[in-house]
């Protein structure tokens, strides 16, 4: 992290974040105005979000023009792609959880994550995936009785039917 003294140009890529925030604030301000704003004597449901949106928007613009350099920002690199993979795995877990139950979702997720993202040995992968899944199924599904979506594995073990 360098603490440069020279000022970065106004069109420097890192300023995108300030613009995104300003855009977000403008959007929420417009949406707030579509709600009953009321008057200052009788504030409506839209008054408060409108005030906050305007405040956030102004702050974002001040940041846009006053931030001197990119020292706060971490550049995106090739390694950043692994974050997308991580996100997709998490999203995949939710989809599997809803459709094939917690046990299988947990097993598949753990194997893929431990092997391909954490780069663990197969022994650790299998041990970890089975171990974590058993512990979480016992704690959450069996002991705490969290009403998870239909789980064929738990169903098979507890009732003998899928």
């Amino acid at each position, binding site marked *: 992290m360098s*603490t440069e003294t020279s000022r970065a140009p106004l069109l420097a890529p890192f300023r995108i974040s300030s613009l995104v925030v300003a855009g977000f604030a403008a959007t*929420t301000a417009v949406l707030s105005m579509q709600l009953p704003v009321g008057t200052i004597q009788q504030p409506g449901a839209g008054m408060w979000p409108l005030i906050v949106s305007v405040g956030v928007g102004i702050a974002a613009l001040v940041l846009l023009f006053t931030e001197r350099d990119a020292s706060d920002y971490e550049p995106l690199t090739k390694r950043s792609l692994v*974050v997308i993979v991580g996100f997709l795995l*998490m999203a995949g877990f939710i989809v599997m959880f809803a459709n094939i139950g917690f046990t299988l979702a947990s097993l598949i997720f753990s194997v893929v994550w431990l092997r391909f993202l*954490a780069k663990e040995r197969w022994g650790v992968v299998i041990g970890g995936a089975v171990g974590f899944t058993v512990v979480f199924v016992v704690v959450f599904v069996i002991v705490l009785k969290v009403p998870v979506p239909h789980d064929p594995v738990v169903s098979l073990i507890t009732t003998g039917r899928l």
Partner: protein
Amino acid sequence: MDLGDALGGFAVALQPLNLLFVFLGVLIGMVVGVLPGLGPAPTIALMLPLTYVMPTEGAIVMLAGIYYGAYYGGTITSVLLRLPGEAASVVTVYDGHQMALKGRAGPALGISAIGSFIGGTVAVIGLFFLSPVIADFAIKLGPPEFAMLALGGLFMVSMLGQAKPLKNLIVAGIGLLVATVGIDSITGVSRFTFGSTELLRGIDFIAVTMGLFGLGDVLYDLEHSVRSARVSGKIGRVLPTKQDLRDSAGPIARGSVLGFFLGLLPGGGGVVSSLASYAVEKRVAKDPSQFGKGAIQGVAGPETANNAGSTSSFLPLLSLGIPSNVVLALIYGALLIQGITPGPGLVTEHPEVFWGVLASMVVGNAMLLVLSLPLVRVFVNLVRVRIGILATIIVLVTMIGVYSVGNSIADMWTMLIFGVVGYVMRKTGFDPGPLALALVLGPLLESSVRQSLLMSGGSIGIFVERPVALVFVLGIVALIVFQVISRRRSAVERRFYDDVHAQMHGEIEPDPVIDAPEDLSDAVSPPSTMTQSRGEKEQ
């Protein structure tokens, strides 16, 4: 308020089940304080769903245990590994690690545990005398005062937080906007729901915090290779010598008092207290040149102060309903789950919770003292746990945890979205902490502002015409002015932080000696990146 209530707190804390919860909290806290990639905020977020099935006092004493236990875990890594796991342990690096290099890691950790115990106990005694005053005062506050108090809390956290104040304010503003999603409690109008029935009940606090702090950290850590840690120096005998105790007596006494008062301020807590204590100790020392070279005073004072501060910071949370940092915001969330709204009525309506939590902190600190001394060697090995394995556990726990709160798949998606938001915020130098705090304070702030305007017929003068509200407004103004002046930190200090940060990310090898900043009196906040690799966002 009488002595009976306070003693009743000990009766609550000493119940076998609660003792078990305190023990679990302290143990989990120490573990996560040491583990890479976890801190108290994500851990408490992970534990929130579990508190549904726990008794109120048990849930809160366990979460409180995680809070101060994690500080001590952070101390272990500061001393032995030169990795300040928590922001509150940053100053412990200066002298604690130097002591470790001289083979005196044991006494550094020992005096930290002793100081923490004394600091926490002094703070509880202080709260015994102060809480009736604050509770009486709080009952007299109206909407304008609460509006300014909540606003002041957000400003304090933004100004003293880990990222740039302007960025913190933006994040807090976004948190206030997120808090408005759902049905407006005053007019019944649905806001920003886009026709979704799921959004009518608002965006779930637990889903947001678990996303920001749990999944956000996992995604962020995926991108960063975490250097394997090396233990520096021998731990040696853990018990401090008589000379150590003599040298530490003054710093512990001063740290207790200083930490207690700084913890009461919104935005206060462990970090500010420990930094201020270090500055004070260096100033009053007979030989300040020893600071940064292994002076035990530089460990004893800040470690005492951060525990006293984290204990006393429970008072604004429990008696005013104003959490002064993100960890307390999460505990606020836990109290709401239990059907208890922290605020002026809590001390009188639920004395068992108020005093039970405080008494549990004395008990918990005693446990820390007993646990930490013999188990330091065990804990320090935890730092070798690989982050990829931890990440798998965190994802599974957060997913099933957030689902269990509302039995809602939608909450899982909300959490994932906020996980991405948390990752992007870290990449762009925004601290997610103020968002969680604003989400908690948002409904109180909005309703107070709107009620104030209704009371005054639309005059914003109501916020400065009432004496107490005026004091809060002046406090906010003074804070902004102070911050603008003191933001110009010395180049020496900035270099120091950059150096520590670079080492935490494995960018450079540690030097045998890093110079502590000359003057920490204006260094009320470490840089935004200081604790990012740990995911800890507590103030």
